């Protein structure tokens, strides 16, 4: 047993750390400062980087939303023009989904999965860093087009403007000749790569790195949802990757996949996109369901009601989610049989989702509910997500959807599930785990103020949109006429959005304040139930002084009630591990960053192969091919060096007081 535990702590699957033969870059060892962040392989640091970027983009996406709402405040408004508006909603949707909610989830995957499964890091720490930096490259490519609004002589053609699902043939060269669409295609492609790599890593981590005793049926629900989500990602993203390749070829090499004059079928893009797109919405909501399933038991002080059923329904949602994509295409003339089949399949998803709602209520039932801020957001989630789910069911009735599709009713539906659902749960999670990772509490009072502002503002913004949609207001319209009966609804929604913006602002302002000034907290400020609450806040680099032995579903709750038994076990583990050389930790590395940078250089120039970019009246980077190839070579070289360098590693030794000392090179 002790052997297994000691080995378990190993990351990098049994590679004996050896002196690097081809040591081109000395392995960085900095623990603080810029270099430590750039070269880190620590899942917590990577998680925080993901989180920081995601929150930044969430605010940018929100700002874009506020501009959209301002334009729609009054009819025939000329605050912004059609073109800019189209860029705004495209980038708002793309940003919120790919650059805010997905990476925020990735942040929590990184922060929590290794700790909740009782491991010291993810299975492939350098690969994890690679996913992060590749994600940054994708985010850059998507947004770089904005620069041409600031410096008009940079002719990227503005930000992407084809809508977040970029229906062909609008994406073909004939209709959107500018670079923005190429950057959109490549940006999404690269974000997809990042997500697939990250998901593979999480799958292996969850399945293979569990602490002794942590069976799958004891796994925290959050980890289960992360596992299902990771599977959805690796299985759904290839569909859009292929679709994007096809668009890219159409644009650059004259293929005919979606080229109407060559016999292409633009509807194929829709199928491939939604084969990805529908699982994608569950990719956005399953991790939030995980957070809520962690938060509710803590604040109701009861275990999750119906754990196996919640887990199973999560798996079921993921699986059925692959068979309903065409409900986004009810109006494309698929024929009655296909429409009927997808309609019914879509309704079926209500069952496993409902099961989760019922079990959450079951968790509350008979508990001692403490309405702390995270709990308020979690409860808000249940209410709002339920409403959003109901409008989803209304969409699933295909003939009724013929009136709702592409109207504000859809906008209302998906903001209820995406904000009322995903975002509320994320805000709950941020508030809940903030003390764990920063060691400080967020003040309750201001948290509650922000909750109420957000809650009220959100409903004021999006509830009227149901009615706007039923009253015939189409989405993606930069202006509307004053005689359509939409004036009041839009005005009200815009006011709501400002209120919502104020709420979001308050929320994050309070976080920033708490980061510096918040009250310090101990291991377990909420009386939590899972393993992360058993370690110090913020967690040390090696997470656990001793790898825990898991005896029950809520591992830490069990530990708290069986302290003697656990203390003995832990002492034994520590001894065993020290006798094996101490706690093994993976080394930092430059290569993930370099590989990603090479990829960025390659992609950025590849996008421009057919578009010379003008800067200050001159054609700069006149030949992009060499630069693109250089980028490719840098990437492959970095990957090669990465594989030669090996995982490396060093050891941490703990003294009786838990103080750590490090030793390098003592690999025996």
């Amino acid at each position, binding site marked *: 047993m002790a052997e297994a535990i000691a080995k378990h702590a190993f990351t990098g699957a049994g590679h004996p750390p050896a002196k690097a033969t081809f040591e081109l870059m000395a392995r960085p060892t900095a623990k603080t400062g810029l270099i430590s962040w750039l070269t880190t392989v620590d899942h917590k640091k990577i998680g925080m980087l993901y989180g920081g970027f995601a929150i930044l983009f969430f605010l940018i996406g929100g700002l874009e939303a506020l501009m959209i709402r301002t334009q729609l405040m009054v009819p025939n408004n000329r605050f912004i023009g059609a073109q800019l508006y189209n860029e705004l909603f495209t980038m708002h949707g793309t940003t919120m989904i790919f650059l805010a909610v997905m990476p925020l989830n990735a942040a929590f995957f990184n922060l929590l999965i290794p700790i909740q499964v009782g491991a010291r890091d993810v299975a492939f720490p350098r690969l994890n860093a690679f996913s992060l930096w590749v994600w940054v490259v994708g985010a850059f490519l998507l947004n770089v087009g904005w620069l041409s609004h600031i410096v008009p002589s940079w002719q990227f053609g503005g930000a992407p403007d084809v809508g977040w699902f970029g229906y062909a043939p609008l994406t073909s060269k004939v209709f959107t000749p500018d670079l923005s669409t190429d950057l959109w295609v490549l940006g999404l492609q690269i974000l997809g790569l990042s997500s697939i790599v990250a998901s593979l890593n999480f799958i292996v981590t969850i399945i293979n790195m569990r602490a002794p005793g942590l069976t799958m049926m004891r796994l925290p629900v959050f980890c289960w949802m992360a596992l299902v989500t990771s599977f959805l990602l690796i299985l759904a993203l290839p569909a859009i990757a292929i679709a994007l390749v096809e668009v890219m070829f159409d644009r650059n090499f004259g293929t005919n996949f979606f080229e109407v004059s060559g016999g292409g079928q633009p509807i194929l893009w829709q199928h491939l996109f939604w*084969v990805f797109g529908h699982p994608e919405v569950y990719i956005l909501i399953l991790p939030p369901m995980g957070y809520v399933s962690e938060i509710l038991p803590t604040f109701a002080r009861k275990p999750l009601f119906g754990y196996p059923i919640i887990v199973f329904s999560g798996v079921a949602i993921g699986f059925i989610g*692959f*068979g309903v994509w065409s409900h986004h295409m009810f109006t494309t003339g698929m024929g009655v049989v296909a429409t009927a089949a997808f309609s019914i399949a879509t309704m079926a998803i209500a069952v496993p989702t409902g099961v989760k709602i019922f079990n959450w209520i079951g968790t509350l039932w008979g508990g001692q509910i403490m309405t702390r801020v995270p709990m308020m957001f979690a409860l808000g989630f249940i209410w709002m997500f339920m409403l959003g789910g109901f409008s989803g069911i209304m969409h699933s009735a295909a003939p009724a959807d013929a009136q709702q599709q592409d109207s504000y009713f859809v906008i209302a539906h998906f903001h209820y599930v995406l904000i009322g659902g995903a975002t509320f749960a994320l805000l709950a999670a941020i508030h809940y785990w903030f003390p764990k990772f920063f060691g400080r509490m967020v003040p309750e009072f201001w948290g509650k103020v922000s909750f109420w502002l957000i809650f009220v503002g959100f409903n004021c913004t999006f509830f009227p949109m149901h009615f706007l949609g039923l009253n015939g207001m189409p989405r993606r319209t930069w202006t509307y006429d004053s005689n359509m009966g939409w004036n009041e609804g839009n005005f009200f929604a815009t006011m709501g959005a400002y209120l919502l913006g104020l709420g979001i602002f308050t929320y994050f302002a309070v976080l920033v304040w708490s980061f510096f000034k918040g009250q310090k907290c101990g291991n377990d400020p909420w009386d939590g139930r899972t393993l992360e609450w058993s370690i110090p806040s913020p967690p040390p680099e090696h997470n656990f002084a001793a790898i825990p032995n898991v005896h029950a579903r809520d591992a830490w709750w069990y530990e708290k009630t069986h302290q003697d038994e656990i203390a003995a076990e832990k002492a034994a583990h520590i001894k065993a591990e020290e006798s094996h050389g101490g706690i093994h930790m993976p080394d930092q590395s430059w290569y993930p960053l370099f590989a990603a940078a090479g990829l960025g250089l390659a992609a950025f120039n590849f996008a421009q192969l057919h578009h010379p970019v003008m800067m200050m009246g001159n054609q700069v980077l006149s030949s992009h091919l060499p630069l693109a190839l250089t980028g490719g070579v840098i990437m492959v070289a970095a990957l090669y060096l990465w594989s030669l360098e090996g995982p490396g590693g060093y050891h941490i030794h703990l003294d009786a007081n838990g103080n750590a000392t490090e030793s390098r090179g003592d690999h025996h």
Partner: protein
Amino acid sequence: MSAPATTADAGHHEPSKFHFYIAIAMILSVITGVEVVLVYLPIAKWFVVTALVVLSAVKFMFVIFFFMHLRWDKVFCTILFFIGLVLAGGTMWALLHLFGADAGKPLSAAALDFARLTVG
């Protein structure tokens, strides 16, 4: 773990699969040969199609279970791979049906020409 394993004595190993692999490869080549011949034979079309599908499925299974050792690995690997295989197969099946249905048929050539003419 860090023991230089190159010197590990072979006695503990399972018997070499060298000849076994060669046999598998031979079977695979023969099947491929049969497939190629099959399409030229004057037999009912449905039969050839079925036979081809079955034969390539057999080849597929031979490779994943023997060359890729699924047969000797933990079942979980098999499950993992089949999740992807089944979903991909299902999606392909659905797509082919969606496009094969009457409603999914593209405009006739005539209608296409008409549409093109009106673009001017």
